[in-house]
């Protein structure tokens, strides 16, 4: 996955090198804000609730297709359509928790992985049967617009819009988890699963809402990525592992940590693409992940909580 609108790296002058690096960093931040949304959703599901979710990227893909479907049927701009798409994904997540996860007889890591892998296969194949395996892309007039900052830096308009929305929604999600009753309850369950029902918390209801919220986070990111991405049924797969990387880098259970990790990952990938080539970006992600896991398992921004 490339950084948007990268200029080719010129070796001639130091100043050019500086500007291309700056451009790459800015592009990385734009991508990173969307990563942050994906990571925050996963931080809620995996970090706080401890559900090993291998369908996160698939939920993102569903968010893309739902937004795309709304656009095709009603012509609603994806920057509004994603709201409905993510509401749909919230309901889907809620139902998956209520219908399946709540009834799992054995709650081991592997059973959760197996269940979410199964769901990922079901949804991916269902989308492929409905929409076909071809690539689709939206044609919005906004796509061609660029915002110029001085002579050397230009930022792609749809990425800027997505960035703004991602920052607002990410902050909203953080506020929800930190300051509402349900958010507090979710964190209480993470701290002590056995004491929280004694304090009057309805564990399954809170978990179902949190799971729905985490899934919606992926769905929002999908909707906001739609204008700048090709879509195809397996487009989400790359995000599942990245989401895990973000949660671990940010420190398990830390929503803000995952958000910062998302931004860092965006910048690292963008700089890797600039200096070594696009194809190494993912490998660098995993290398960082393994380094952090082996040297500092609490995460770089690790709050030791949870």
């Amino acid at each position, binding site marked *: 996955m490339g950084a948007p609108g990268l200029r080719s790296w010129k070796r001639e002058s130091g100043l050019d090198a500086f500007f291309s690096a700056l451009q790459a960093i800015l592009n990385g931040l734009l991508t990173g804000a969307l990563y942050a949304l994906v990571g925050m959703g996963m931080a809620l599901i995996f970090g706080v609730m401890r559900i090993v979710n291998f369908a996160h990227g698939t939920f993102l893909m569903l968010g893309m297709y739902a937004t795309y479907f709304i656009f095709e049927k009603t012509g609603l701009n994806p920057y509004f359509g994603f709201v409905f798409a993510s509401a749909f994904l919230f309901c889907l997540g809620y139902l998956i928790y209520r219908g399946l996860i709540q009834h799992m007889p054995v709650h081991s890591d592997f059973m959760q992985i*197996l269940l979410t892998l199964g769901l990922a296969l079901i949804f991916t*194949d269902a989308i492929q049967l409905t929409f076909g395996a071809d690539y689709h892309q939206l044609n919005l007039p906004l796509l061609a617009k660029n915002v110029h900052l001085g002579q050397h830096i230009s930022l792609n308009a749809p990425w800027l819009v997505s960035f703004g929305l991602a920052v607002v929604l990410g902050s909203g999600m953080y506020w929800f988890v930190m300051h509402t009753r349900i958010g507090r309850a979710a964190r209480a369950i993470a701290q002590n699963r056995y004491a929280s029902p004694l304090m009057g918390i309805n564990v399954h209801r809170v978990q179902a809402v949190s799971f729905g919220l985490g899934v919606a986070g992926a769905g929002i990111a999908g909707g906001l990525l739609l204008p700048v991405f090709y879509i195809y049924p397996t487009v989400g797969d790359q995000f599942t592992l990245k989401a895990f990387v973000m949660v671990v880098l940010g420190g398990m259970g830390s929503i803000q940590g995952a958000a910062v990790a998302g931004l860092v990952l965006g910048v690292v990938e963008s700089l890797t693409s600039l200096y070594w080539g696009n194809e190494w970006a993912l490998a660098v992600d*995993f290398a960082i992940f393994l380094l952090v896991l082996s040297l500092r398992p609490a995460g770089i921004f690790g709050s030791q909580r949870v």
Partner: protein
Amino acid sequence: MTRSKSWIAAGSFAVCLLIPLVVRTDYNLQVLFRVFLFAALGLAWNLVGGYAGQLSLGHAAYFGAGAYAMALLPHFGVSLWVAPVLGIILAVAFAALIGGVSFRLRGPYFALATIAFAEVLRLLAKNLPSVTGGDVGIQVPSLFAHAINRSFYLAAVVLTAIAFGVTVWVSRSKFGYYLMAIREDEDTALSVGINTARTKLEALFLSAGITAMGGALYGSLFLFIVPDQVLSLDISNEIAIVAMLGGAGTALGPILGSIVLESASETFKNVFHEAHLLIYGLLLVVVVIFLPEGIVGTVNTWLARRRSALAAAPKQRAQRNSAS
């Protein structure tokens, strides 16, 4: 293993060797090859994932090591039958690196670390085309010149038999009890004097070696490999699912799991065509909800319950009689 069980095992092995006399079409032999290949891979995974309880989701690393050794080494003048052996050594070297880092982690962290290693290897294989052929892929020489499908089928059966033998030995040895102790409670195992790091590594070496041999056979049968196939997450997942479906931590589980899963997925491909992954996904969900202990585990639980009910029945009758 009791004497009668040994006879059953030997008899089944003989029957499996004789199957090619009945099954003659290339397609059916290839399906059966896949069944036994994944039975062997599942048994190998089971040593680490089942007996030691270490959930590896990166076994594609060892599978790919075997396949790529089989593909690359003959170019350097290594003879055909030495290449898989060097592949096994390469996989064990990978296992030392991967295990050395990952075994210090627990729970989902361990699984994620193994995935990350396998993915790094896949990306290296993709991005270094001068060594591995990259995305274009690379040709693999065939280990057998005549009756190719039958020979590969027999090789897979032999590999499964070896893996089964190793599993039976492990499950009855002190080494196996160490592994199970680690699965039940690693801290306690450590405190009673088991060198847990070393024991887990040794299990992974055995597992990686068998997996690499499987990878070499796979590559050599299909004559052509690409990173997204032999080093993919799908391979890692399939290996683990085969073992868990049959019953992790049992010797028969992975074999049954492979028979069920591979024949089901082959049937789905033929019956449901494009919807086969959807059905496969549904199968996984059904297993999680209804068969969480795997086939062998569920049957064992059911048998144990029946046995205890039978044992309890006469006692109850006796109590009733004495009461009256």
